[in-house]
């Protein structure tokens, strides 16, 4: 069992998805129960990754290796370290929420909806667990397919445009990654990601490979200026789709920087780090202002996601400037901050989208102007919403603060102005989030329909409560998360700072 833990995590949801499809839409309730049961089971299994994880080594754990395509030395090679393990648990955690959230809301083809999310869960776990580049690529691309269908089938009015844009954008980004993976295979004779870490590459090769990776990961994160698919996808996707997209799929991009860009092309990463930092700062500041003027709540949160993900890339690439010989703390802080930010954003963005989902289910509008004074009819719900909004704004004591604070500390060491610009998000972020809260939840009721809103039911309450606990717990005591990744991140820092030239 121990040795096939990761395989179980990948294939159990996928096969459960097939089963749910076979059960069919006619027996929707059976399908729902099975889906949620499986997702909870997968979450419980994934917890044993955490409990049995040895946080004193950067080596891969729970490794599995079997020959897959011997023609190219491609292996079915799985394993996790301190970077991927938390992301896998985040995936299993979010999937439960999404499935429960879609319980009543999705009435058209409910079984297929559940199945799509289950399969996507397995595929995304596969992305985080793969140690073979082609296996990684297969999972990476395959996870687009369920998302394409989720946006296209269950999405809003403009779903076709959003779904196809989402697919083509990410597909275009990834093919360049494929070419560079093949290039490295031809050079080193192995598709193993760990072998690629040790492959020596010239400066020119690194530069090309770096930008190829950059296209794949920057689209996924998404970074300015390739972020334009995200607002469309988020706005059109059903609530569950938005949650998975923001909470997990964006993290695949960040994970790519950790797993591929830094260790494989350290010199190019150093060389181009300022470009990436400047793009990240644009995302943080400029996109923050863009979020300010949105009228659509989902769009606002989508832009705020881009802005928050800017911290991830900032934290990663600030390490080169923050690092001073003998004093690695600042660089380490930035990297760890990026990881913490990814996890925390997973919780907060999921929560924010679920909050909008709750409102949308009731009034079928995402426009801020439709609402106003929601607190009068939905007091419990408003409590949660305000908490998550505060977390989104980076209030100390919530998870949103921890990651951003760490990244800002790292950035200040790199260049004081980076820190200042990144820090400005605490103002802009607070502005757009709180202004939205003010217009939606507080004030007088302007729309008579708002008066008739019923407060959240037990199902919605429990989802939001779980997320609230997660957000506060991460905010007050992030140490367990930092502990599991500490050694891995130190090793990664070492790899990133060791020149391959």
């Amino acid at each position, binding site marked *: 069992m121990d040795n096939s833990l990761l395989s179980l995590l990948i294939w159990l949801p996928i096969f459960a998805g097939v089963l749910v499809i076979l059960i069919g839409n006619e027996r929707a309730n059976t399908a729902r129960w099975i889906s949620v049961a499986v997702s909870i089971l997968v979450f419980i299994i994934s917890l044993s990754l955490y409990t049995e994880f040895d946080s004193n080594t950067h080596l891969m754990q729970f490794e599995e290796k079997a020959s897959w395509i011997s023609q*190219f030395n491609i292996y079915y090679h799985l394993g996790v370290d301190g970077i991927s393990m938390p992301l896998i648990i985040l995936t299993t955690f979010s999937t439960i929420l999404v499935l429960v959230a879609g319980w009543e809301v999705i009435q058209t083809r409910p079984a297929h909806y559940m199945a799509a999310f289950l399969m996507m869960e397995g595929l995304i776990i596969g992305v985080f667990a793969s140690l073979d580049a082609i296996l990684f690529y297969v999972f990476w691309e395959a996870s687009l397919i369920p998302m394409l269908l989720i946006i*296209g089938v269950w999405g809003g009015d403009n779903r076709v445009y959003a779904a196809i844009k989402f697919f*083509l954008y990410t597909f275009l980004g990834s093919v360049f990654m494929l070419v560079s993976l093949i290039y490295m295979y031809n050079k080193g004779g192995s598709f193993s990601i760990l072998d690629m870490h040790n492959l020596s590459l010239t400066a020119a090769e690194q530069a090309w490979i770096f930008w190829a990776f950059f296209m794949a990961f920057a689209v996924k994160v998404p970074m300015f200026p390739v972020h334009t698919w995200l607002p469309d996808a988020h706005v059109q996707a059903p609530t569950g789709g938005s949650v998975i997209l923001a909470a997990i799929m964006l993290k695949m991009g960040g994970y790519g920087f950790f797993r591929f860009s830094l260790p494989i092309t350290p010199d190019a990463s150093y060389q181009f780090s300022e470009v990436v930092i400047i793009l990240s700062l644009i995302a943080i500041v400029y996109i923050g202002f863009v979020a300010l003027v949105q009228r659509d709540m989902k769009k606002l949160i989508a832009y705020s996601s881009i802005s928050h993900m800017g911290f991830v890339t900032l934290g990663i690439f600030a390490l080169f400037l923050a690092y001073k010989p003998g004093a690695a703390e600042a660089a380490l802080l930035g990297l760890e901050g990026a990881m913490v930010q990814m996890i925390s954003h997973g919780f907060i963005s999921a929560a924010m989208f679920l909050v909008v989902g709750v409102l949308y289910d009731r009034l079928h509008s995402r426009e801020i102007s439709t609402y106003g004074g929601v607190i009068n009819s939905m007091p419990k719900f408003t409590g949660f919403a305000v908490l998550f909004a505060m977390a989104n704004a980076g209030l100390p004591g919530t998870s949103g603060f921890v990651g951003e604070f760490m990244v800002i500390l790292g950035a200040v060491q790199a260049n004081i102005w980076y820190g200042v610009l990144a820090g400005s998000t605490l103002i802009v972020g607070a502005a757009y989030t709180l202004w939205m809260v003010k217009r939606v939840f507080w004030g007088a009721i302007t729309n008579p329909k708002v008066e008739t809103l019923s407060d959240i039911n037990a199902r919605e309450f429990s989802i939001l409560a779980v997320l609230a606990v997660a957000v506060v717990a991460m905010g007050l005591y992030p140490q367990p998360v930092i502990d599991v990744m500490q050694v891995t991140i130190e090793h990664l820092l070492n790899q990133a700072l060791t020149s391959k030239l």
Partner: protein
Amino acid sequence: MNNIYTFDTSTLWVALPEIFLLSAIVVVLLLDLFLIKPFKQVTYYLTQLSLLITGILAFNLIGEPKTIIFGGSFILDNMASVFKVFMAGSTMIALVYTRHYLTSHKLYRGEYFVLVLLSMLGMMVMVSGYSLLTLYMGLEVLALSLYTLIAIARERAGAVEAALKYFVLGAIASGLLLYGMSMIYGISGSINISDIAAFAANASLASREMLILNFGLVFLVIGIAFKLGAVPFHMWVPDVYQGAPTSVTMFLSTVPKIAAVAMLVRILVDGMGAMHAYWSDLFIVMALLSIALGSVVALMQTNIKRMLAYSTISHIGFIMLGFVTGVVSGYGAAVFYVLVYILMSLAAFGMIILLNKQGFEADNISDLKGLSKHSPWFALMMLVIMLSMAGVPPFIGFYSKLFILQQVISTGFVTIAVIAVVFAVISAYYYLQVVKSMYFEGSDKNITITASMDMKLILSINAVLILVVGIFPDFWMKLSISLF
């Protein structure tokens, strides 16, 4: 090999599949004349049986050492045998789909099956041809049968137009090919591939021989490119694909591609291998043009058959890239790509045929609207087929592209690989249009599927194979390389 120019009956077993098939054709043809109406189905079953036996006979010859008979004009090697097995198998699958089409369009005639068998014979001769004459003969048997097959729906103006177009352009291509062959024969003094190979290998660089060889080579490449449908010799492809009855389009776009690739291997790789540097340059240009044009022009199509025609052109581009590499594993990648392409193409046309109803051609993308509601299973299958054609993992179409790209990059053509993948992304757009039609759009019409059980079953297996072989592609990749 010393008795290579004598006729020896003890070597006839080498051509056993061909000999059997020829006899079977005569039997089927004669029998069909005397069958009365209620027994017309017998022709179909006899055809399938003949193909099955041909396939088995060819299968038994796999592993035999390379043998050349009939005065050096007929070769038996693993590539020939494996290709014949694949051709027999895919023709059988195609015929299952074809029967549904023919009955629903009142085109069911015995000649149809005889013509398919005849073209099969032509292709087998092409696969095993080892002299320019044998190859040409096989090609003509194939081409003449195909012209007639297209025109079998003679009441339809589109079909007749397609047949004529194919005939005229095909005749020009044959003429060019023959002209090239005559050049090669004129300078090398032989039509046998092995003699030509030896001559080409010994010709010195700037000699007069080389000049004429090159001259002939260009015509051979043009002739082959015509048959493959590569840009700029692709003009016939979209019109013929759209105009021909769907079952013929399906046949035309699948099995003959194996034969064309085999002919390419025999003439260019086996015969003109020494001149790879010359023809690979031509191939690079044609391959990239094919990929680009196939991907871009298909974007505007509303007719699936026409869209698939352009998609074929772009697939052909990828196949040609495999030959650009000039290494055995690159040729293997091309062969793997052909086999994968045939699997996908059969399934894609099978789906179009499946949606055909009495006298109604469901060949517009909009005819698929709302399929996911009416038949979730076949919508899923079509999704698999389309994404596989777009090269999205985990489906088999990804691995064929991976294999080609890996070979192309390893021989130093990174730029070509990048251009190819960019166009692959562009082409994903039109495959997504089909997905969009099936999944994202509702339909006012009710789609009913009237096909018989065997058609549904084979089509499902066909499509599921795209996923299953995609998960376990190793054996097929190794097999493809082992053929060279």
